[in-house]
C-alpha cells in the first residue's frame, strides 16, 4: 500500500511538474537479483549507491536468488508474473536462459555505454559476450587455495598437485559437479589444454578423466557452496581445495588465514546481467537505464575496490585501484593479472551446454559407486 502511494505521489508530482515527463516512463523501483555476500555488497557499493545518488526517487531491492535464478525465472514466466528486473547469473546460466526464451536478447552497442575513448561496447567487452542475452560484468576464476602450513617447504605451483597424494597428503575439496574437475583431471593426465574438450567428447576420454579422479576419490570432500572450501581450509580439514578466487582473497587478505593461492590452470568464468523477458515498459526502461550505468567503464572498475574479480571491460582494467577498506593494490589479486594468468584454462560454454546433462548423470553415478 505504501508503495502504491509512493508511486501515485511520484506520478502526481511528475504530472504537475510537466517537463520531467520523461522520467515518468521509468519505474521507480528496481529488483536486482544477485548472489548475496561480499559479491552483492560490492555491486551495491559500486553501482547501486551512486545510481541512487543520481536518481533519489529510485528504490533498489536485492533478492539473493541467483543460485536458483534459472528455475525461479522459468516458474515466474510460466505463472506470467515476472517480478525481477535484472538478474545476475553466470554465463552458462545466461546461455540457458537465452535458450529457454526467458532472457531478453539485446543489442549490446545500443544498450550499453561505449568506452571513454569511444570504443563500442561490443568491442570493449569483446569475446566475453558469450550470448545475445548476456551483459558481462566480471571475470572470476575457479582456482585452488592451499594451507601454507600443511605443504611443508614445497608449496604447490602446479594444478596437478591436487592429484599428488604422495607429495601432499590429506583431504582436498572439489566441487560436486563434473565441470572443471573433468578438465583438470585430463590436463593432469597429460592431455594438451587445446584438446581437452575433444577428448572429453569421447567415451574413452570420459573414462580417462574418471580414472584420474578415481586416484583421489577417497581423499575428496565434495563441496556445493562457494563458502565450503574457505571454511574447510580455515579449519585445516583439507590441504588444498578449489573455489572462486574472490573467496580465497577474503580468506587470505581479510581473515588472515594461512592459505596460499595456486593460480595455475585457473578456469575463467564470467558473471553478468540478463534482463528477463516479460517486463512492463516502465520497468524495462528503468532496468535498461540502470544497466547502462552499472556496466560503464568507471563502475566496473569501481567494483574491483571491494572484491577481487576482474572487470569485464578492457577499458576498465587500467582504472582498477586499491581495496576500499584494506588499502592494498587490487591489480595483483585479479585473476586477469598477467602474473596470475600465466596458465589459464578457458571454459567452453557451448560444449557444456550440450554435455552437462549427460556428464552430470555419469558423474553422479560415479560419485555414488
Amino acid at each position: 500500500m505504501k508503495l502504491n502511494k509512493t508511486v501515485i505521489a511520484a506520478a502526481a508530482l511528475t504530472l504537475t511538474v510537466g517537463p520531467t515527463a520523461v522520467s515518468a516512463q521509468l519505474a521507480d523501483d528496481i529488483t536486482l537479483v544477485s548472489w548475496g555476500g561480499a559479491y552483492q555488497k560490492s555491486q551495491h557499493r559500486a553501482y547501486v549507491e551512486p545510481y541512487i545518488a543520481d536518481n533519489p526517487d529510485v528504490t533498489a531491492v536485492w533478492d539473493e536468488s541467483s543460485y536458483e535464478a534459472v528455475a525461479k525465472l522459468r516458474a515466474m514466466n510460466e505463472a506470467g508474473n515476472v517480478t525481477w528486473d535484472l538478474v545476475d547469473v553466470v554465463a552458462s546460466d545466461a546461455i540457458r536462459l537465452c535458450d529457454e526464451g526467458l532472457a531478453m536478447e539485446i543489442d549490446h552497442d545500443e544498450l550499453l555505454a561505449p568506452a571513454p575513448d569511444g570504443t563500442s561496447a561490443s568491442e570493449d567487452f569483446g569475446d566475453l559476450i558469450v550470448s545475445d542475452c548476456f551483459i558481462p560484468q566480471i571475470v572470476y576464476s575457479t582456482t585452488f587455495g592451499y594451507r601454507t602450513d600443511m605443504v611443508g617447504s614445497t608449496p604447490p605451483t602446479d594444478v596437478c598437485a591436487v592429484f599428488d597424494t604422495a607429495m601432499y597428503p590429506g583431504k582436498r575439496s572439489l566441487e560436486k559437479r563434473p565441470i572443471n574437475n573433468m578438465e583438470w583431471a585430463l590436463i593432469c593426465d597429460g592431455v594438451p589444454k587445446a584438446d581437452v574438450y575433444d577428448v572429453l567428447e569421447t567415451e574413452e576420454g570420459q573414462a580417462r578423466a574418471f580414472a584420474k579422479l578415481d586416484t583421489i576419490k577417497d581423499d575428496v570432500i565434495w563441496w556445493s557452496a562457494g563458502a565450503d572450501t574457505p571454511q574447510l581450509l580455515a579449519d585445516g580439514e583439507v590441504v588444498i581445495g578449489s573455489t572462486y578466487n574472490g573467496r580465497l582473497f577474503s580468506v587470505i587478505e581479510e581473515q588472515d588465514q594461512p592459505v596460499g593461492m595456486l593460480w595455475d590452470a585457473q578456469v575463467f568464468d564470467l558473471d553478468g546481467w540478463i534482463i528477463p523477458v516479460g517486463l512492463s515498459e516502465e520497468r524495462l526502461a528503468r532496468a535498461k537505464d540502470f544497466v547502462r550505468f552499472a556496466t560503464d567503464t568507471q563502475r566496473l572498475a569501481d567494483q574491483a575496490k571491494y572484491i577481487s574479480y576482474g572487470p569485464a571491460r578492457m577499458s576498465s582494467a587500467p582504472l582498477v585501484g586499491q581495496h576500499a577498506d584494506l588499502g592494498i593494490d587490487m591489480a595483483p589479486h585479479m585473476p586477469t593479472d598477467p602474473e596470475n594468468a600465466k596458465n589459464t584454462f578457458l571454459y567452453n560454454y557451448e560444449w557444456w551446454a550440450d554435455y552437462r546433462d549427460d556428464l552430470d548423470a555419469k558423474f553422479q553415478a560415479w560419485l555414488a559407486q
Partner: protein
Amino acid sequence: MTAIDSPVLTADGTPLKASLRRALRREKARAFLLVAPLLLFVLLTFIAPIADMLFRSVENGIVHDTIPRTVQALRNWDPEESGPPGDDVFEAFYTDMVFAVERKSHTRLGSRLNYERTGLASLFRKSGRRVGKFDTKDYADAFKTLDPAWEDAATWDVLAGSEAASLPRTASAHATWLEAVQADGSDPLEGEPWDVLYAALYADLMQAPAGGFENPLLNGAQSAAAGFEPVSLREQFAAIDEDWLDPQVWRTIRTYAGRYTPGYFLNSVDLKLTADGVQYRDEGDRIYILLFGRTLYMSLVITISCILLGYPVAFLLANLPLRTANILMILVLLPFWTSLLVRTSSWKVLLQQQGVINDILVALRIVDDASRLILINNQTGTIIAMTHILLPFMILPLYSVMKTIPPSYVRAAKSLGATDWTAFWRVYFPNSVPGIGAGSVLVFILAIGYYITPELVGGTRGVFISNRIAYHISSSLNWGLAAALGTILLFAVLILYWTYDRIVGIDNVKLGG
C-alpha cells in the same frame, strides 16, 4: 381421510417436509461455508500442485507444438532405415524451424531433446542462427522476377484461401506466417513474404500435376519453377552440421514426438526409451534405483535409531514427577525450536575430522591422531544429524501415548507375580506400540523426503533421492524428470502407508489421547 393424506403444513403454509429440507440444506451450506476456506486452501496448495506434478511427469507437448509438420512427416519414415529421412521431412523441418526461430522456441526444444540425446541443444541453437539464411532466397528471387505479384502479400492471401487444397504446404506455412506477423503487431498485407513461403510454394508446384491449376499465375509459376535450380534443404541442413544426416537424431525426435511420454518415468528407474523400445541405461549411467534404495534404507535406519533413542526418553518423561519431566521436556523441545540450518551446521563443527568429537577422542587417546574418525560427508553423518533432527517427532507421540497408560496396569501385573521385565514387556510395551507406530510413520515419511541435511552433511554416499530432485528442479531444469522422481517417491510413501495399515492397522496409530 383427506386430513391425513394432505401434508402437514407449517405456520406460513409451506409443507413441513419441504420446510425441514430447506432448513437442513441451509445448515449444510453453513457447515460447508465454514470448511470452505480450508478446503480451498488444501485444494490450491496441496491437491493442485500434486496434480500438476503428476501431469508434468508425462507431458511432452513441446516437440509436437514446436515442429508439428516434421512430426507429421516423420510418421511416414521408417526409423529402421540406415540413412536420414527423405526430402519431405527436411522441407517440413525447414518450415517448422523458421517459425520456431521467430518464436524463439527452437532452443527450448533443443534443451528438451538434449536430455535424451547429448548434442541436440547446440545443434538446434546453431541451426536456429543459420536457418533464416538458407539458399531458399533463390526461389524467392526467381518467383519475384517471374511476376512482381509474388512480392505482394495479398497474392498469397488470396491463393492460400482459394487454392488451399492444391497447395497444402503453402497454405499451412502461410497460416503460420500470418500468425507470426500479427504477433509482431504489423499488418500482414503490408508485410514482405518470407523465403519459407516461396520454398513451400516451390515444393507444392513440383508435386502438383502440370498445368492443373485454374489460376494462370500458378500455371505460369509452375512451368517456370521446373527450370529453377533446386535447393536441397537436406544439404542446407547438412552444411550447418553433419549431425542432421545422422538417423539417430531423427529417431530421437520421432521417439519423443508424442504429446505424452513414458520417457521420464523410464529415466527415473534407469531405463531409457529408444527407437528400438525400452532398454537399460549403460552401467555408468544408472543411479536412480541406487538412490531410491539408499533413501529407503537410510530412512529405515534413521527411524530405528529414533525408536531406540526416543523410547527411553519418552518413558522417563511419562514416568518422572511432573517438575522433572517438564525440564526434560524443554530439553527435548529446545532443539525443535532451533533453526534446522543452525543445527545441521553445528553437526559439521562437531563431526568433522578436526572437529570437537575427534579432538576429544584424540585427547583421550582413544583414537590416534593419524586415524581420526570420518563421521561426516558420508552416510554416518546423515544418519547422526537426521536422527537428532527427527528425534522430537518420535518422542512426542510416544510420550503422549505413554502418558495415557494407567500405572495401575503395571502394578497389577507385578502384584500377580510378574518380574519388572515381564511387566514391562508383556503389559507396558504392548500398550505403547501405537505411539511407536505413530512416531515411526512420522519420522519415516519426513526422512524419506529430507533434503537440506543430507545435502550439507551427506557427502556423496549420504545423499537422498530428494537431492537429485532438487538438482533437476533448480539446476538441470529437467522438470519432467524431477516430477517423475517425485511421483515415484509419493507412491512409495503411499504404498508403505498402505502396507503399514494392513500389518499394524492405522487405527492403532495414536498421536495422543
